[in-house]
């Protein structure tokens, strides 16, 4: 064996072993989701203000992401986001306020969910979600640009349970992908850390009680949150009817 072939074979073997280890560590298949007691223990260990006492449900969003709504000992309705990561199910976000929030589980905007857990005292029967971008215009060097307003809505029933998940409809997915693709082509090096690469686009919601009135969910909007590692979430703002167009 010449020296050159020796160098090449040793490098190749090292490379293959490293790749295998990386694959084994980062890309292993998920095991069964832990039992409720274990979830509670793990959440309270990581974040003592969670005070988790009862697991309401475990909702599998895809094979590596699970939404776990819980009730805490001080009567808060909280949410936790679990991810299969580095050979373990880990809570990547725990929060005791359950007002709606966007969870983007993947870089692809199609894998986007709005998650909530309202306190029963807030009496939320239905929720209308909005995706809004306001209209604007600009003129530079004589060239006009007009940005039309986007205002689309999806109505979701929230009467069965305090918690729920809204998975992006095809329309919302298409719209969000187009907005992001264009924004990324415009600013290829810019990343805002939010789901939308266009900061003018916002999510909003309006809760409706059993009389069909919109009341701010006071018992769900205040709490403590904790993030562990990289989790892509976005705010969903409470929207006053005055801000909407018809």
């Amino acid at each position, binding site marked *: 064996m010449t*020296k050159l072939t020796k*160098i090449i074979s040793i490098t190749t073997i090292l490379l293959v072993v490293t790749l295998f280890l990386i694959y084994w560590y980062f890309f292993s298949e998920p095991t069964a989701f832990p039992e409720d007691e274990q979830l509670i223990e793990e959440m309270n260990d990581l974040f003592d203000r969670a005070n988790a006492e009862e697991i309401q449900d475990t909702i599998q969003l895809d094979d590596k992401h699970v939404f776990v709504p819980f009730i805490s000992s001080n009567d808060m309705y909280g949410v936790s986001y679990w991810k299969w990561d580095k050979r373990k199910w880990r809570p990547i976000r725990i929060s005791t306020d359950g007002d709606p929030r966007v969870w983007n589980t993947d870089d692809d905007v199609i894998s986007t969910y709005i998650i909530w857990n309202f306190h029963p005292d807030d009496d939320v029967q239905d929720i209308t979600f909005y995706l809004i971008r306001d209209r604007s215009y600009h003129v530079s060097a004589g060239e006009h640009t*007009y940005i039309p307003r986007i205002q689309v809505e999806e109505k979701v029933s929230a009467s069965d349970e305090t918690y729920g998940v809204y998975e992006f409809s095809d*329309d919302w997915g298409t719209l969000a992908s187009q907005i992001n693709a264009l924004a990324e*082509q415009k600013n290829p090096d810019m990343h805002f850390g939010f789901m939308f690469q266009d900061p003018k686009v916002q999510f909003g919601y309006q809760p409706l009680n059993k009389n069909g009135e919109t009341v701010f969910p006071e018992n769900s909007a205040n709490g403590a949150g904790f993030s562990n590692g990289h989790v892509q979430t976005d705010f969903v703002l409470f929207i006053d009817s005055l801000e909407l167009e018809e």
Partner: protein
Amino acid sequence: MLGITSFTEGLSLLLAWFIIIILIYVVYQKLDEKPKWWAALIIVVVGMFSFDFSFTFTQFSLSIPILPLGVWLLILIFKWTDNTEIWPIYKPFAWLGFLSLFLFIITKLLVLPVDHFMYPEEELSTYMSDVENASVMKIHPSGDDVSLDDLEPKIDSMQRDSIRSIDWYNDLTHNPDPDSNEVDARFPYLLTGVEPKWGSDLETMIYVEHDGKGLLVTSSDHQYYFRSEDSLLKEGVE
């Protein structure tokens, strides 16, 4: 300027590699003491490893190689393995790898004018080349339930018109009735499923006017407005 499309990007890469292969061949033939040809190829590729200075102007990005990291790495490897005596026969290929990085920049600049012929920015067909799967989405509550009405034959006859952005904006925001949230949006629909011309990689959002006769094409750096004689929409959802 559109930046560089994936078609011309590909073209410039092909061109660069074509020249590199020729250069490798020429250098190889000239040498008295020849290395193994596959080893020479590997050395060229490692020689391309460099520290770059990258910059972007209006979506056209260039990276200028500054430090020949690959060449240095090779010098070190040959030294560590006590092969310094055979380094001179590999050296030309290592430097060829590094210098070829400049070739990628040159070909990228050379093919740039091709873009303007292949993808004229002011023509609607650049943005709407394949409309077979096109449909229309309502993006504002003032829109009606509509669907597309035989879009394809109307594209070619559409005429460019000026974007009166200030007027359009003011018409909608100066609401005469402060108690009403009713707004008749000018572009309440969005075209979806439209493919731009092959190889252009253009991302756009194409809005449809409320009367169904206007298209507002927004690309990443320009906006164009086109009008049609007949409406592109018909009532009712398909």
